[in-house]
């Protein structure tokens, strides 16, 4: 209603004619030179910008309706529906003419008012015992409900608010120390950790496939060692079938490597006789052995 008073006060002095504004009565909406003005002059000129601000100030159809009702100082429970509907429609029309963004809710309310108005015109049931709903009941309920929260919003706005009305008092603390707290640990936490790490280790161990490394280099040493004692070894005796295919392969690779390094010689007395392996007549330290690993899974 403050908005209304502002507008009325701002426009009260002018006297050109435009759109006939809605006619109201009863409640003074402006005081001009000490005289309450209860009726807007019919030839009142409202600057379009002012009207626009005024119309935009409404928070919705309920807000506009409340304004219309309050302006006539009538109780929300006793809405002269025909009158209010006419006024409401006039405002809607104004908004449309001013090209204000008119929310659908305003038109919905217009429809509701029209419906109420038409129901009010219908004759009531003659049967007095039958309860009949006042067509305005729902509207009144909504208006009242809206008005309570409109009021509550104003009340909240009036509460002393931080930053606007009161300020947090603070003084600096110059020599602040930084304290670090240490985490707390319960014994159970540690016990569970231990249990889990042990379980994990066991699981790791049982699933772990131990890789038995058969080193070609190792086998090369083994072969050389065998040759050291006897000087000459039958080729087939270097192989141990119980080692499986991989073992045989490793021994064979070791032999090839030894041959390549010219550390051993393979000799045959005559064709179709058994092969023999013997140490080559060289300094074994001359060769740098590579660490070649073959692993068995």
């Amino acid at each position: 209603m403050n908005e209304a008073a502002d507008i009325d006060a701002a426009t009260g002095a002018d006297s050109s004619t435009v759109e006939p504004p809605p006619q109201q009565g009863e409640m003074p909406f402006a005081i001009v030179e000490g005289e309450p003005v209860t009726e807007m002059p019919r030839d009142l000129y409202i600057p379009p910008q002012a009207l626009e601000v005024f119309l935009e100030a409404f928070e919705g159809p309920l807000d506009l309706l409340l304004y219309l009702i309050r302006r006539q100082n009538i109780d929300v429970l006793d809405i002269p529906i025909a009158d209010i509907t006419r006024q409401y429609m006039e405002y809607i029309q104004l908004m449309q003419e001013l090209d204000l963004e008119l929310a659908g809710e305003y038109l919905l309310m217009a429809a509701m008012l029209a419906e109420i108005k038409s129901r009010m015109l219908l004759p009531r049931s003659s049967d007095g015992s039958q309860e009949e709903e006042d067509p305005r009941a729902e509207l009144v309920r909504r208006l009242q409900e809206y008005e309570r929260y409109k009021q509550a919003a104003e009340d909240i706005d009036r509460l002393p608010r931080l930053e606007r009305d009161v300020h947090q008092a603070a003084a600096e603390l110059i020599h602040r120390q930084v304290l670090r707290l240490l985490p707390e640990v319960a014994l159970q936490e540690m016990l569970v950790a231990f249990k889990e790490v042990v379980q994990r280790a066991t699981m790791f161990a049982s699933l772990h496939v131990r890789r038995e490394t058969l080193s070609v280099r190792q086998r090369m040493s083994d072969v050389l060692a065998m040759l050291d004692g006897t000087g000459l070894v039958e080729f087939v005796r270097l192989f141990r079938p119980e080692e499986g295919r991989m073992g045989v392969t490793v021994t064979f690779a070791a032999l090839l490597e030894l041959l390549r390094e010219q550390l051993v010689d393979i000799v045959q007395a005559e064709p179709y006789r058994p092969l023999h392996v013997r140490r080559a007549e060289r300094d074994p330290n001359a060769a740098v052995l590579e660490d070649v690993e073959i692993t068995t899974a």
Partner: protein
Amino acid sequence: MNNDQLKSTIEAALLAYGQPLNVEQLREMFDEFERPDAVDVRKTLAELARDCDGRPMELVEIASGWRLQVRSAYAARLSKLWQERPSRYSRALLETLALIAYRQPITRAEIEDVRGVTVNPNIVRTLTERGWIRVVGHREVPGHPELLGTTREFLDYFGLKSLDELPSLAALKDMDDVGIQLEFDGPATVQATAADLAAANDADAAN
């Protein structure tokens, strides 16, 4: 530690912390062997509040504890210290906030029902960013709409200890108290609410 020392320490703490402190936080400052009990801290806070009489600051209890604040009498002058004006909030925002505060938990649809207009998403965002409202759950209806409620920061900001301290809501009037007789000749009844009905029946009986 005597009473005066306790009082000075609490005042120092509230000033240094620059935010509200609750009784537990204040007690935590002290080592166990000298820690004052909660009753003593409260008593001392009350004393400190009295000591602030005549000083430019006051000690108030709010939702999250106790706050030393500069009295509102100085607000107009102090506002010149800051370049920015304190935010003014639109009626739409305040009405939305009021509905959330008084009717929480509440959905957007329910807010729209009362206000008669759709809720502007910016308003909900602003209120959330300010830390005044938050989603407190979802209503068990199709679409599971968010239920909004206010936060402790909201109470703190408006200097309230709890929601009970919000200004009381206006009462709803019964429709048949006034008016209806003016429109209708006979006694009219309304089915709006049970209370209305009961009141209407009483009125009927009286006639």
